[in-house]
């Protein structure tokens, strides 16, 4: 397995708060990697560092062997490294199909192609993916009128529409009805196996992440606490202590 994302000794602080200290992780191509940790442990900060939302203080971040820690957000997204947001971000005034069509991979498009109308195949693909996440019936509704959970599903479908190489998901199951979570796990796994998208997932729901990930990293207080397979992480006393507050 090759490493698609290599994070090496990354530190990031906001004023006096050290959000990330000397973090090194690796994401394997084609796999599902998990990132867990109690609230405030620096998971989202690490995500933001990887996708270029803020400059890092030190360390290096490589995507497919290329240094990306100095690149702006759009450039990184155009390499095929995409993220979803913890607070879902969709285009609320448009309907679901329009949201999907906007998410066409513009990085693979020339200006000439941008000045064309979407083809029947594009519409079919959008509807197919909406069906894939279970939003087919609501595809012509204003997306802002959907429930938070449905908006999350829409955002996930939009990310798939963009044909990313790697997808960073920030708490994909938060706010989703527990009965829908099993369906979502299944869809995430299928996105990984059928579409070949490498997944890197922040998740609080232990059942979900233990079910999916090949490898899990655990952060606590901005530092890397443990890494290993789901079974190793579950058996790690430091991880249990971090979650239950033994510090």
């Amino acid at each position, binding site marked *: 397995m090759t490493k698609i994302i290599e994070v090496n000794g990354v530190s990031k602080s906001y004023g006096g708060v050290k959000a990330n200290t000397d973090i090194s992780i690796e994401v394997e191509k084609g796999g599902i990697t998990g990132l867990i940790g109690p609230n405030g442990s620096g998971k989202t900060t690490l995500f933001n560092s990887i996708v270029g939302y803020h400059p890092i203080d030190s360390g290096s971040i490589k995507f497919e062997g290329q240094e990306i820690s100095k690149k702006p957000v759009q450039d990184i*997204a155009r390499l095929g490294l995409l993220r979803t947001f913890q607070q879902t971000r969709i285009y609320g005034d*448009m309907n679901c199909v329009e949201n999907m069509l906007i998410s066409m991979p*513009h990085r693979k498009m020339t*200006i000439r192609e941008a000045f064309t109308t979407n083809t029947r195949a594009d519409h079919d693909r959008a509807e197919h993916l909406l069906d894939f996440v279970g939003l087919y*019936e609501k595809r012509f509704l204003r997306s802002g009128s959907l429930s938070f959970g449905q908006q999350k599903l829409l955002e996930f479908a939009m990310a798939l529409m963009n044909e990313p190489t790697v997808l960073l998901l920030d708490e994909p199951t938060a706010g989703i009805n527990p009965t829908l979570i099993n369906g979502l796990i299944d869809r995430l796994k299928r996105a990984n196996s059928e579409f070949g998208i490498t997944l890197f997932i922040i998740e609080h729901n232990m059942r979900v992440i233990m079910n999916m990930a090949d490898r899990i990293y655990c952060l606590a207080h901005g530092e890397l606490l443990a890494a290993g397979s789901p079974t190793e992480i579950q058996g790690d006393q430091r991880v249990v202590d971090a979650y239950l507050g033994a510090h």
Partner: protein
Amino acid sequence: MTILRPIFYLALLAFIIAAPFIAPDFRTQLATLWIFIILSMTWDMTGGQMGYNSLGNILFYGAGMYIAAVVGISIAYNVGEYTNAAGGGIYKFTDTQYFLGMALGLIAAGVLCAGIAWVLGYLLFGLRGPYFAIGTLGAAIAAGELVSNWEWVGGGQGIALPVFPGDDYENAKLFFYYLFAVTGVVLFIFLRWFYTTRFAAAINAIRDDEEKAEAMGLHTLRYKLITWSIAAFFVGIAGGISGYQLIHFEPLETAFQTINLGIFMVVCVLLGGKGTLWGPIIGAILFHVVKEVTWNYLLGWQWVALGALIVITVVYFQDGLMGWLARVKPEWFGERVTEKPALAGEPAE
């Protein structure tokens, strides 16, 4: 519905062609209406569709006026001597010089204004929301002041262009009406197609959530520059035609008229409904009618009435006519729940 549409457009086109003969006394008014329509439609490209409220689009109108005039003069005379009020020279233009100069001038106005928008966009598109509005307003005011101190183009005196050839000025009125109408119709046809493209979807994405659009890998800056440049191209041409129509214009009140036309185009779009194809057109017609009626029947109070209209629109009626329709009749705009037909190869939930 599908049969009605071409009939509607043909009837509309016939009306546009016949309008100056139906109302021969209003030829110049109708030409002015086209300016409002063109400026509103182009303002909506960035303001309504892309979420960048420019208060400085009038800059392209003024620049277009000056560029078209300077190019038109320069094919026959030295611009510096021509504009020198103290020179006292008399300059005659042959018909060929007049029309060739105007044609070249309008092309130059469009192209150069697009270029100005591109350069200005690089500087200003880093600003968001109200900062962009103030930044563009500042650029337009500054441009007016710069030009009014530039003696080569006549300074504060402005430029007096040659008069339309022939003795019957009705011909000139018709000519300028149709010139504006052609520009407006071409712009409408262009936008009708433009708003169906992937490119337009991308600028809508920038309007609704630019950060998300960036995170999805859209070329946001490039798309913003192209959109504003296209808008500036048409505004520049409209400004150029206006210059020839007015014959004489000066920088602050006519060309770079920030507080009149510069604001009116925004109000037209708000009144009609921004982010729609028809909203700016309907708004421009309404606004122009209200403006002329108050000028006729409320003389002395016309600016108060116009100010009141602007305040009421901005405070109570921001979505405009089309936005209001979309709210009360969402099903007219395609919002619906649909039953799911079984898609091939997809297991049902």
